[in-house]
């Protein structure tokens, strides 16, 4: 499999079609990241497309000595997602869905309800905590890569993730308490 830098050289020398290799390689992680950062299924494909187009048109500004191509691409995606989320109405922890009452197919309903509450809690997190949590937990990036994307220190990334986890744990604990 060709290295990213070799593909980028080909593109910069006029082989536009080589960009397809980068899109095929990163479409999965990128769409997943956009979907998880914006918390919305609708429009995440369009946003991912915008990210690829921005990467293509600014490819000359990519410096391989400063970061991996994937880190650079994820930084563009992160910025676009933050802007997209800013345009939407913010969700607060106070807006978490009401708990379902009564009996019924308890396990499924409980599961669905808790998943929905976790999604809402994730969307309600401050942008920097949500980004750090999503990139490390869902995308599997290292703390170092996230620190590069967020232009901050590794310690800051760790503390943001810990705070995000604490808030999600609160949701789990509250749910458990309500159920018992």
């Amino acid at each position, binding site marked *: 499999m060709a290295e990213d830098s070799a593909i980028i050289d080909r*593109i*910069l*020398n*006029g082989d*536009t*079609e080589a*960009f*397809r290799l980068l*899109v*095929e390689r990163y*479409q*999965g992680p*990128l*769409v*997943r990241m956009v*979907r*998880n950062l914006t918390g919305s299924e609708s429009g995440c*494909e369009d946003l*991912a*497309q915008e990210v*690829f*187009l921005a990467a*293509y*048109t600014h*490819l*000359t500004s990519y410096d391989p000595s400063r970061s991996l191509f994937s880190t650079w691409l994820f930084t563009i995606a992160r910025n676009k997602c933050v802007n997209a989320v800013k345009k939407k109405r913010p969700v607060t922890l106070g807006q978490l869905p009401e708990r379902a009452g009564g009996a019924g197919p308890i*396990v499924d309903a*409980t*599961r669905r309800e*808790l*998943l929905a509450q*976790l*999604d809402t809690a994730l969307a309600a997190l401050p942008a920097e905590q949500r980004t750090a949590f*999503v990139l490390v*937990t*869902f995308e*599997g990036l290292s703390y170092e890569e996230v620190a590069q994307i967020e232009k901050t220190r590794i310690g800051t990334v760790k503390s943001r993730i810990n705070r995000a986890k604490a808030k*999600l744990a609160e949701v*789990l604990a509250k*749910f*458990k308490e309500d159920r018992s």
Partner: protein
Amino acid sequence: MKHAEIYRDWIEVHQRVDAHPDLVANVMREIQQAEPVASEHVSMWVRLIEWIDASVWLKAAAVGAAGVIGVGRIVFGIHLLLAFRLLGV
């Protein structure tokens, strides 16, 4: 089902998001319509540097030329100084 298991499920669900099969084709269509990524000016310099970098002899010639220009400037400077002295300026 325990809440910890549901939490793990939630993480797995978010790790399983897939791209739409048309995404690659859509991106490539947009790119065909976009401006070429490298300008001629940049390409020319990149090619020139690569060309010099490719040959040891060219690199040696470039260093030699720089040396000759440097020494030439010093000699020319001394020459001017002497000329001004002779003219009594």
